[in-house]
């Protein structure tokens, strides 16, 4: 027994797998010296032939790390090229929309002029899109009106939503008339609302629209991949208007600078509530 005098032979150290981990103290006795002494002569033969061996776990770790790194690089390259392609796509779409809006506007003017030339009358189509703002507060609201406002997602004063106009919704707006003001927003209103006050409903959270990724992840299925797509869908009340407008959290608007006229009577009578058709744009300039 050469070196095994002092601190050593507690041999039952070897197989401690049955000892629960919390039981062992951190500083354990050194039984390893004996083991090392035994191992040295065995390895010494191998040592003289090869270089000092790297433990297998280190080799595995290195291999794993390198594999991960190469994969990560590939993934980033792919992602980058995809992002570039997407950006080009978005650019083209935005360009196309600018053209479309211009054509639309000029069309209306052209048709009106044409009709006037011939002594005829041009009746523009009824509005398809409305922007509804809740004017009055929470208290003392009758149940029918309350329900309608809930359905429109107007749960707070000065909340606004985009609404598609059809017989059903027009009647709903009529029920809630004293509590809302609404009208037909123009392109500038829509853009301002979505750019400045646009928040997305993601997983039940109200997240700002800071990049097109949020939009694409949610509305990719409806072929809306960027904010311009969203604006286009809303403004031209497309097929996926429902998804686009539901994606948007109800707009939280400011009180109008310059103030209201009189919230308690209809716009037509000199007040504020009810349908004010395209005068809503002027109000929105003051509220957004």
């Amino acid at each position, binding site marked *: 027994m050469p070196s095994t005098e002092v601190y050593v032979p507690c041999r039952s150290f070897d*197989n401690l797998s*049955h000892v629960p981990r919390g039981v062992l103290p951190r500083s354990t006795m050194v039984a390893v010296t004996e083991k090392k002494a035994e191992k040295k002569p065995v390895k010494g033969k191998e040592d003289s032939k090869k270089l000092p061996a790297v433990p297998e776990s280190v080799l595995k770790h290195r291999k794993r790390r390198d594999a991960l790194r190469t994969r990560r690089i590939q993934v980033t390259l792919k992602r980058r090229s995809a992002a570039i392609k997407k950006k080009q796509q978005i650019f083209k779409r935005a360009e196309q929309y600018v053209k479309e809006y211009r054509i639309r506007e000029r069309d209306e003017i052209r048709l009106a002029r044409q009709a006037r030339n011939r002594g005829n009358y041009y009746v523009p189509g009824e509005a398809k899109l409305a922007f509804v703002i809740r004017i009055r507060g929470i208290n003392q609201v009758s149940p029918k009106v309350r329900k309608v406002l809930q359905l429109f997602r107007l749960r707070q004063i000065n909340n606004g939503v985009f609404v598609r106009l059809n017989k059903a919704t027009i009647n709903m707006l009529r029920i809630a008339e004293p509590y809302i003001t609404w009208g037909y927003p123009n392109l500038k209103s829509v853009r301002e609302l979505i750019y400045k006050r646009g928040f997305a409903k993601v997983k039940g959270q109200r997240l700002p629209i*800071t990049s097109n990724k949020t939009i694409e992840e949610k509305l990719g299925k409806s072929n809306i991949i960027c904010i311009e797509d969203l604006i286009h869908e809303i403004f031209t009340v497309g097929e996926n208007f429902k998804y686009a407008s539901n994606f948007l959290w109800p707009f939280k608007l400011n009180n109008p600078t310059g103030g209201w006229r009189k919230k308690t009577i209809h716009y037509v009578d000199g007040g504020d509530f009810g349908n004010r058709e395209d005068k809503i744009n002027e109000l929105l300039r003051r509220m957004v």
Partner: protein
Amino acid sequence: MSLSIARPLVSVYSEKSEVVAGSSIALPFVFKAPIRPDLVNDVHVSMSKNSRQPYCVSKEAGHQTSAESWGTGRAVARIPRVRGGGTHRSGQGAFGNMCRGGRMFAPTKPWRRWHRRVNLRQRRAAAAAAVAAAGVPALVQARGHIIEKIPELPLVVSDKVQEITKTKQAVIFLRRIKAWSDVLKVYKSQRLRAGKGKMRNRRRVQRKGPLIIYYKDQGLTRAFRNIPGVDLLKVDKLNLLKLAPGGHVGRFIIWTQSAFERLDALFGSWKTPSKEKKNFNLPQPKMANTDLTRLLKSEEIRKVLRAPNKRVIRSTRKLNPLTNSKAMLRLNPFSAVLRRKAVLDQQRKNNQRALALAEKRGIKLSPKDPAVRAEKIRERRQKLLKLAAAKKTKKPAAKKTAPPPPKKKAAKEAKAKTPAPKK
């Protein structure tokens, strides 16, 4: 691990602490039983209640008066008061726990449940765990025993120890075996108890020393019993209160050879149930492999895990794209084109206006004036474009579809080029 255990050989030491050659015993299976400090603690708590003596206050304490409340109207509290007169005691409050000389709240009763029964299974499992823990030097040290210099753990000594009759010899044996430092520690720890135990026949306190487990007492008990801290235990009657004093596993145990050999018969192995204990087999460990680090880093588990998500997502501040151009570009890259066009259109308008004003007022602008310059560039460009368009239309004259696109392209180029070089 319970199925395939390496059982190291434990060498036996003579009473002079030399290895007895040729006699080494395979480690009994008990020492591989799962060590359950929680179980041992629970069983110890219950077991140590079993040697209690009941205490209580006297049954009549506080009630040996005929006190009655004076009722209301006498400007005193309504507590029952002692009747009669002529002594301090008269009129004093009685019976209540708040009264001096009254009975205490909830007087302690002798029929309190003093003892606890422990399930046999649990008792046996705890004993197995305590024995197993005594084979781990780390645990024994953690419990506080001085075992630096002992030859081996578990420490097995030849049966000659059982024949020791004189305490002097016992001490010599302990010294030779290097267990004396543990006993010394006991000596050093002898002190008076803190508290009222002093006057209740529990005056002195000391820590526990080594535990000697034997098979046959041939004078061993009487030799060792006067050494402070040393406990003796028969293998057939292992006592958890001695194996794990205080509920803490890892007592320093010195086994005699025959005692050590008995352990296999007493506790059995997982394959064979115990011979002595009916219906008993060593408890199964909850985890076969308790090396958590190894497990977590193993390939099998790593493969099934998803990649770690080390990205910290913080909420981004919303910048208004209508005023912040970078934010706008991020959302709508075409906005750059629109903005640029607006800038250039404005410039062109300014130049045209300047020229028109100059004409109207009859002022001649210097050729270095930017409006004049821009106009010249524009005219030159238009001339070049017309030439280029003419050349293009001449060549693919056969094809019908060719001419229109070049014209459109030329028109577009004219539009694009005239604003471009102005800056």
